[in-house]
């Protein structure tokens, strides 16, 4: 057992302990990796609902008369296109086009909220403050991470469960949209976002109300909802083909090789990393992130070598036995010229090569319900 003495705790720590969660160190926090079973939690999110504590994630407010101009300069996307109540997936890149973090930028009221990975929170904050000091923008950057809790009901039943606790018009709240309002009498920012490949919500509230919000959601969910940990979050996002910083993304990867070129708006004017990213786009990325399904009975894992015609050509960034598909799946970087759906590779598992075939990403796509 590792020493958890110096780790931070989220406002929901006591709920996790009471629920019998297995707690592990993650990004400086003591976080639930599972409650009873990763597979059970994974299936709950695919078929009903799971409840995640994501309070470890970073929340950074960007405000001021030139907040939009500042974010257009800092992010690779075009936050100027965001209407109030709208969100976009984006990234911070360095001057070389390497990814500092991937994040979601929300336009809320007259300001912006950046939600970043917990492990990158300090780096993101320092980077934004450095850009702000250098660029002479009329904008402010405020770290709200400690006082903000983030609770995420995810899964096909999450909308019906949430609807019992709020008057907000959830049926009008589209994907990557956010609304402010009361949930169980608690002031929340309710966002229709997630990291599971299912319909779901992310609820931001004051840290001191997190326990009550959690309890109300568990109560309202009844048998349709169970708490879900980081283990299920990882298998869910991997099936949905969503990248994880530290695995698929990092300072040595650029958005184009990670299939995220659509996020980069090269024509919006000057921004950090623009020149380097324009060169990558022009030349095409040298390597590509691909999806692999194993044809042999072996589980690919992070760091395992990928072979093509017997030579090592790449590496697995994430891999698992997919609970929803019953297949062994992986994402991997390979040279761009070798990438193509149907192409054959091998993954080295315990010194032996096992056959794999490239498939289209994502591995899993939910059946969208008909709109009424």
């Amino acid at each position, binding site marked *: 057992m590792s020493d958890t003495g110096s780790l931070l705790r989220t406002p929901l720590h006591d709920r996790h302990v009471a629920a019998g969660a297995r707690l592990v160190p993650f990004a400086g926090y003591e976080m639930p990796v599972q409650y009873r*079973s*990763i*597979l059970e939690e994974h299936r709950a999110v695919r078929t009903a609902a799971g409840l995640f504590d994501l309070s470890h994630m970073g929340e950074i407010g960007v405000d001021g008369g030139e907040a939009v101009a500042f974010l257009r300069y800092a992010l690779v996307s075009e936050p100027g296109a965001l209407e109030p109540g709208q969100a976009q997936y984006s990234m911070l890149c360095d001057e070389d086009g390497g990814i500092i973090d991937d994040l979601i930028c929300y336009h809320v009221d007259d300001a912006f909220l950046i939600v970043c990975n917990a492990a990158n929170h300090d780096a993101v904050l320092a980077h934004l403050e450095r850009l702000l000091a250098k660029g002479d923008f009329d904008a402010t950057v405020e770290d709200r991470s400690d006082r903000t809790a983030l609770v995420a009901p995810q899964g096909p039943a999450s909308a019906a469960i949430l609807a019992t606790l709020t008057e907000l018009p959830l049926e009008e709240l589209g994907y990557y949209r956010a609304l402010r309002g009361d949930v169980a009498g608690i002031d929340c920012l309710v966002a229709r976002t997630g990291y599971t490949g299912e319909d779901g919500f992310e609820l931001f509230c004051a840290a001191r109300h997190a326990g009550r919000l959690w309890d109300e959601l568990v109560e309202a969910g009844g048998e349709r909802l169970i708490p879900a940990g980081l*283990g299920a979050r990882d298998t869910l996002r991997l099936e949905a083909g969503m990248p994880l910083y530290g695995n698929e993304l990092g300072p040595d990867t650029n958005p184009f090789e990670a299939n995220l070129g659509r996020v980069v708006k090269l024509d919006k004017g000057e921004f950090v990393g623009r020149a380097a990213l324009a060169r990558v786009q022009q030349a095409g990325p040298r390597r590509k992130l691909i999806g692999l399904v194993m044809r042999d009975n072996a*589980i690919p894992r992070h760091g395992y070598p990928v072979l093509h015609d017997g030579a090592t050509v790449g590496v697995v960034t994430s891999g698992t036995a997919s*609970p929803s598909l019953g297949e062994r799946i992986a994402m991997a970087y390979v040279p761009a010229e070798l990438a193509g759906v149907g192409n054959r590779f091998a993954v080295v598992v*315990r010194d032996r090569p096992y056959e794999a075939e490239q498939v289209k990403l994502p591995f899993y796509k939910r059946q969208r319900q008909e709109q009424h």
Partner: protein
Amino acid sequence: MSHPGDLRYSKEHEWVRVDGGTATIGITSFAADELGDIVFIELPEVGSSLTQFAGFGVVESVKAVSDLFSPISGEVTEVNAALAEQPELLNSDAYGEGWIARVSLADSAELDALMDADAYEALTS
């Protein structure tokens, strides 16, 4: 958690049940719980030789890969082929349907290096 009294246990969380010259081996319920949902096992081959406390296979949970260490030396006479299709038996019935292999016992004196149920219980509680 209670562990069957007729088995011997290793510090690496494997068990052995001796029946005449045959030993059946598996992982303990404690190990299975610690691993979480087991989704894969690499079984030893029939005819291969196991050495006490040496690696003989691998189990994988959703999140992690773990080596298996044999609690006893001997030649593998049978493996539990059902585990290839249903590795979850290791979680649900570690001391029964989740048995891993049967070996012809090489040296019964090796059993002295293993724990009884009470000692194992003390180790894991």
